[in-house]
């Protein structure tokens, strides 16, 4: 008998996100949850994962989780350090990067991301968020995009209050019409499971659930009428190796949230 492994929903989410990254990929890493997952992937099954941060560090190999994208450890361990105009113009824009790994404050059924403002109108918002950062062009230009975000009925909405970064816009054909070169968001990885776009409608559908998470909970924690795959994959719990690696990283970061 295997001893029972206990873990939190956030740990499951981070492990699940890490598994989505394949060895040898180039990955443009957003701050927060995506950074933890990308570093976990590199420490476990994907040692050849190339981590690229918008601060201009290409091939960073941090031994602990960076406190921010300006962490000197990223520059000191990188294959190359380039300026900010260069990271966006030469590296991101031409579509050289395999996967963009993003967070979100609000996301809708077509995978459009809002990190600008929630509620009210733009000039008088209820909640002012940090803004776009590198996300709009990461979402536009990476070959594919994976979003890591906690699932809740207020953050998973029918339509975002503000489109900071485009997923599939208003549906099929819109990315092509807008001239966006990447294929768009392929997965939304949450603390309940994994959503993927329906191949026909491009609406995000729950295709995977973590052990012990029911379809009805997933529906409750979604602000649109969430479709669930007929037979959603039951995603394997974190292995002891994955958890140990993740906790080693978390333990080395003094404090940070998101």
């Amino acid at each position, binding site marked *: 008998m295997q001893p029972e492994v206990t873990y939190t929903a956030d740990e499951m989410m981070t492990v699940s996100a890490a598994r989505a990254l394949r060895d040898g990929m180039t990955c443009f890493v957003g701050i927060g949850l995506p950074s933890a997952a990308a570093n976990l992937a590199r420490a476990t099954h994907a040692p050849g994962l190339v981590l690229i941060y918008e601060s201009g560090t290409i091939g960073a190999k941090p031994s602990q989780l960076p406190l921010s994208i300006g962490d000197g450890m990223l520059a000191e361990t990188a294959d190359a350090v380039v300026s900010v*105009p260069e990271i966006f113009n030469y590296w991101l824009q031409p579509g050289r990067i395999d996967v963009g790994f993003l967070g979100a404050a609000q996301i809708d059924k077509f995978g459009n991301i809002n990190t600008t403002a929630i509620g009210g109108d*733009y000039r008088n918002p209820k909640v002012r968020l940090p803004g776009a950062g*590198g996300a709009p062009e990461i979402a536009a230009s990476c070959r594919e995009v994976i979003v890591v975000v906690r699932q809740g009925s207020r953050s998973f909405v029918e339509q975002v209050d503000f489109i900071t970064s485009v997923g599939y816009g208003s549906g099929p054909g819109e990315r092509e019409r807008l*001239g966006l070169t990447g294929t768009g968001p392929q997965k939304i990885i949450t603390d309940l499971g994994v959503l993927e776009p329906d191949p026909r409608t491009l609406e995000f559908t729950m295709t995977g659930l973590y052990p012990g998470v029911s379809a009805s909970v997933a529906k409750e924690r979604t602000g649109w009428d969430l479709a669930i795959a007929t037979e959603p994959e039951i995603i394997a719990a974190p292995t002891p190796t994955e958890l140990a690696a993740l906790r080693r990283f978390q333990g080395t970061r003094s404090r940070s949230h998101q």
Partner: protein
Amino acid sequence: MAEIVSLAEAVERAIHDGDAVAMEGFTHLIPFAAGHEVIRQRRRNLTLIRMTPDLIYDQLIGAGCVRKLIFSWGGNPGVGSLHRFRDAVEHSWPAALELEEHSHAGMANRYVAGASGLPFAVLRGYNGTGLETLSGALGSAPTIKPITCPFTGETLTAVSAIRPDVAVIHAQRADRSGNVQLWGITGVQKEAVLASQRSVVTVEEIVDELDPRPGAVVLPAWTVSYVAPVAGGAHPSYALGYSVRDNDYYVSWDAIGRDREAFTGWLDEHVYSVAGQL
């Protein structure tokens, strides 16, 4: 040609009420000491420009120095929100704050255009975003427009140049002639200085000779207006080779910034009652 002066003198001579000021530093080498000097000298009606406004811009906004913010990401990196920035946007305290909002790629290219002496830059960006829709929609001049490639006919995006009155950066070192050297994550500082009419550079130290460092940016003395030696001038941010981020400061800022009274108390104690560096 760069003059080596005190920080107080540099700010007094370079930065005036109503100026457009870019204090750059992409989460590394953030010119905190210079920002505090601007607060101490009670500059008003500034347009602040920066890709990643963080705590120092939160402090300048809360202190009432700022009329308008041109930016692409405003947060407390790794911690959360900027509450003085949010209070200004959500409740107009201490004053309303006009926003001009971009993506990082857009801002970086706007600086490149400014540094290049061009009126605009071209990129693939903004298509389908609310940022594109906002540009020029709220009574301000548009800064994002579609442009047709004269060779292929493809529609791309043009962004207007940023030409600040003053750039303010922190660097590791300068020599006695005022040549400036910075390394590690060098962000958009070179472009910001070259795009600006004037510049203030604080440095960790002034040395006899700038021996080469891998990947360093060198700004020749004739591109810089004022150099001021301020050891620790990027605290609490990183200065590679000199100091690491004081993370407790970033974490504790969350509670100070959240509360107007705690913030004004902090300003009195840590900025106004501290003598300028002469």
